């Protein structure tokens, strides 16, 4: 059969089905295989908040979206080009996001009357013409694979469960992906379960062959490999990157890692990764609650460990008092907050950027600390290292903000050598001669790390105000003022030690966009697209939120119009207002879903047309 080959720059694929349909797995295989083929990928898993929602329901749909590109891909894609829909509900909840002309691969069996009813369809969309804007390929996967595996002796249950591999096989054919990585993965995963292994491999091949032979499949798609810096890569999620970042920081600093934490969505993965790293000598405590999580980390930090605690909003709220203790005792501590939609329990599985205020201001007393935010899944690694660097160098707790979007989404990450990473050597106090616990480095204002075990340096620290230098408890008014100012100054000085902002897009513009955290992908894509169009728009992205990079004020002063898109009601905008006293326009999406590139583009257009400054 004649097949056409289409060359693409980028494409968005979404696997959608019932929770039990294995869509997360199919999506992950597809993205890993694509990435190792050299294209850039960005993924986002999207699953229901119910553990096992009833089969076939709208709220039980589980999906996995992948955007592929032959140049840098920064989001998981606004609109879907290719939708795999295993049942009626998964079509229903996704079809509005499908591009006109997009492809739907639909599993007919999932459109029986029961499924249609659960999806609240009154007629079958595969038949009633309602999908005519799209290119629908409907097939009865179960029938095909039953046929394929006839006589294999494999149980019907296993056969049924392998449907996702059939869909995967079709997509592999569509993009001409190699089967080996998945076959290898299956071999490792099911080495003890020959039937499942065989079924999945055969079904995967059957999918490929079906597409190859079936008339409905007329086109194959090819994306040129993206240009990547030389190196070894893997796909990584933000949570995984944080876990690896913590281990790597401890190795680089050459001190043991201690994680004290309590599970909470969407941060739990970090604990789960770390809990498997025992052969790396990692210690952790799944504590009784968030307070014990951070308190144990403070204890471990006091003992000379690289200590960390990980959480999400409600947990951060519980840790507040203990964070103040870490500020007062000037102990290093990495606090990772994987933000989710609040307030209170909110929408626990959905991302938001609404903990910035709390990270900046949310403690009683004057308790400043560095606040960082990761821009993408892979950036979580670099920012974890940065958090550890600042914590150790400045003897301070550091809050690193990520969110549910980048924590669970993945993208390719170049694996660094330890030697590329910044120096993290801690400044342990080792000389009892002239030792005092609050003697400070004149440059950083950090005290030394004097850990139990060092002879001749026995001393007491704690939450009461300390006399400068000696660390004795002090109620002296002037000393308190001085210590409050020193603690502030110590954090402020970090601005000297962080890189200046680089302007992306077109520096010579009237409009400046300031982003932070996970909005990076959408903004960058929009700015790149606009720049390509010749529209002038400048963009800086903040990874350091407290203190800000030194040149932020300068940058801001150069632009007429400043836009801050963020997934909250304007928290960064408020902070920028308070520091720079210039008006800033907010773009505030608080819906538990990330910005789309198109939304940012539209906003740019709107602002520039208002200013009558369209190119």
């Amino acid at each position, binding site marked *: 059969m004649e097949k056409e080959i289409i060359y693409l720059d980028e494409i968005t694929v979404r696997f959608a089905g019932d929770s039990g349909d294995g869509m997360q797995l199919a999506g992950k295989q597809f993205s890993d295989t694509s990435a190792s083929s050299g294209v850039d990928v960005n993924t986002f898993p999207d699953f229901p908040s119910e553990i096992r929602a009833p089969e076939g329901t709208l709220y039980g749909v589980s999906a996995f979206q992948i955007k592929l590109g032959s140049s840098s891909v920064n989001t998981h894609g606004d609109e879907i080009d290719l939708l795999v829909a295993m049942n009626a509900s998964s079509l229903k909840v996704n079809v509005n996001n499908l591009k006109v002309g997009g492809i739907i691969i639909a599993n007919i069996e999932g459109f029986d009357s029961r499924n249609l009813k659960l999806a609240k369809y009154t007629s079958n969309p595969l038949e009633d013409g309602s999908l005519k804007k799209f290119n629908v390929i409907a097939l009865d996967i179960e029938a095909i694979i039953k046929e394929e595996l006839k006589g294999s002796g494999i149980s019907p249950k296993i056969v049924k469960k392998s449907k996702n591999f059939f869909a995967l096989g079709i997509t592999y054919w569509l993009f001409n992906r190699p089967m080996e990585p998945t076959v290898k993965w299956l071999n490792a995963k099911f080495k003890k379960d020959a039937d499942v292994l065989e079924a999945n491999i055969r079904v995967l091949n059957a999918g490929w062959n079906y597409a190859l032979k079936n008339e409905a499949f007329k086109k194959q798609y090819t994306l040129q490999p993206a240009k990547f810096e030389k190196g070894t890569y893997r796909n990584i999620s933000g949570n995984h990157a944080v876990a690896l970042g913590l281990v790597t920081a401890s190795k680089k600093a050459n001190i043991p890692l201690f994680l004290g934490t309590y599970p909470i969505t969407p941060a739990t993965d970090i604990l789960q990764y770390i809990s498997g790293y025992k052969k790396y000598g990692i*210690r952790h405590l799944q504590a009784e609650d968030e307070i014990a999580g951070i308190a144990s980390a*403070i204890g471990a930090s006091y003992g000379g460990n690289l200590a960390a605690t990980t959480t999400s909003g409600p947990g951060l709220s519980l840790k507040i008092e203990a964070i103040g203790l870490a500020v007062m005792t000037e102990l290093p501590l990495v606090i990772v907050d994987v933000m989710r939609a609040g307030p209170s329990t909110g929408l626990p599985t959905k991302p938001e950027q609404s903990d910035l205020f709390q990270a900046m201001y949310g403690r009683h007393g004057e308790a400043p600390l560095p606040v960082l935010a990761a821009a993408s899944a892979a950036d979580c690694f670099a920012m974890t290292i940065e958090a550890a660097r600042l914590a150790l160098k400045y003897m301070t707790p550091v809050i690193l903000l990520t969110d549910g979007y980048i924590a669970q989404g993945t993208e390719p990450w170049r694996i660094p050598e330890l030697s590329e990473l910044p120096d993290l050597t801690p400044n342990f106090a080792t000389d009892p001669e002239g030792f005092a616990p609050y003697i400070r480095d004149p440059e950083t204002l950090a005290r030394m790390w004097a850990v139990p075990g060092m002879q001749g340096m026995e001393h007491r620290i704690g939450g009461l105000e300390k006399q400068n230098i000696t660390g004795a408890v002090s109620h002296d008014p002037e000393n308190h003022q001085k210590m409050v100012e020193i603690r502030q100054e110590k954090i402020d000085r970090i601005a000297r030690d962080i890189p200046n902002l680089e302007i992306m897009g077109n520096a010579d513009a009237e409009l400046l966009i300031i982003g932070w955290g996970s909005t990076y992908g959408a903004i960058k894509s929009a700015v790149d697209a606009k720049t390509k169009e010749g529209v002038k728009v400048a963009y800086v992205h903040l990874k350091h939120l407290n203190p800000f990079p030194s040149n932020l004020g300068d940058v801001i002063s150069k632009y007429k119009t400043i836009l801050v898109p963020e997934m909250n009601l304007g928290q960064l905008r408020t902070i920028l207002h308070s520091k720079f006293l210039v008006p800033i326009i907010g773009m505030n999406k608080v819906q538990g879903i990330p910005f789309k590139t198109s939304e940012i583009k539209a906003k740019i257009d709107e602002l520039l047309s208002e200013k009558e400054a369209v190119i």
Partner: protein
Amino acid sequence: MKTLLEEIISKPHIGTIEYEPKDFKPDVDVRWCAGCGGYSILSPVQRIMPELGIPKEKIAFISGIGCSGRFPYYMDVYGFHGIHGRAIAIASGLKIGRPDLSVWVATGDGDNMSIGGNHFIHGCRRNTDINVIMFNNEVYSLTKGQYSPTSHKGQITKSSPLGALDEPFNPAALALGAGATFVARGIDKDRNHLQYLFERAAAHNGFSFIEVYTNCNIFNDGAFDSFTKKDVREDMTVMLEHGKPLIFGKDRDKGIIIDGFKPKVVSLTDGKYTIDDLLVHDEKDSTLAFILGNMTYNPDVPRPLGIFQSLERSSYNDSVQAQIDHEVATKGEGNITELLVGKESWVVK
């Protein structure tokens, strides 16, 4: 490969470790009220320190907030005056991260049983090797006299001017119920016995809980007089000694038997019972420990003092270490590059 931390903390100690108690007194005024029961805890603690046989710098005292919270300032070792209720959580992290240290907690009835109650019960359950001394004065003292979870029903305090309505905790029973391996009780008026309890706690590999009835002569003076005063003590308390029958009384003429499941006082002089009929203490019997713990507020029997239970069970910090060792032994020491590269990586040239 040794980490930098291991390197610096494994430097050999210079000089002797044959300490005197006074070596543990730092050069500061003790700021407890004159007559505070706290002094009676401080001195036996200082006395047993030399017996630990480890360098001073390997000892750390962690506290929460309360009058007891000042304890670390009065010990010339490493000290951490934490926040209210969190001493056990801080100490647990320290011990897990630094198993080479001898870690002690000084806490109060409010600090440990009110705001810190959760960390306390989980500490008991988890069995990390830390030694917890609870100054039980049955009142919040540092905040100037409110009732605490160990205050008795009806107690008049600043926050219960009409009498407290709460039933008090029985700390020993709570610790046992939570799974503590070492549970003991002493009184401030008997420093030698306290010293013995602290020695035993130090020797116990796991979570040790020692409740000390500690007089607060400002906000709850005489709370324990009814059974700790010299003239009544022998009649109103009974010492738990492993392997020995429960005898008490000035003339050691009374004992405890079990009747049904109820402990009962019997006389050894009226010919009905002999010493052989008495309940014999067994620190290893967890059911007996519950029975003895349950005697605490029973007005018909003397107040039990001593070690309710001392069970051996692997400490949490040892288990952590063992799991690491087992992993390294079976899978080899982890290589960070391998970890980073993982199994599904690719190379761009």
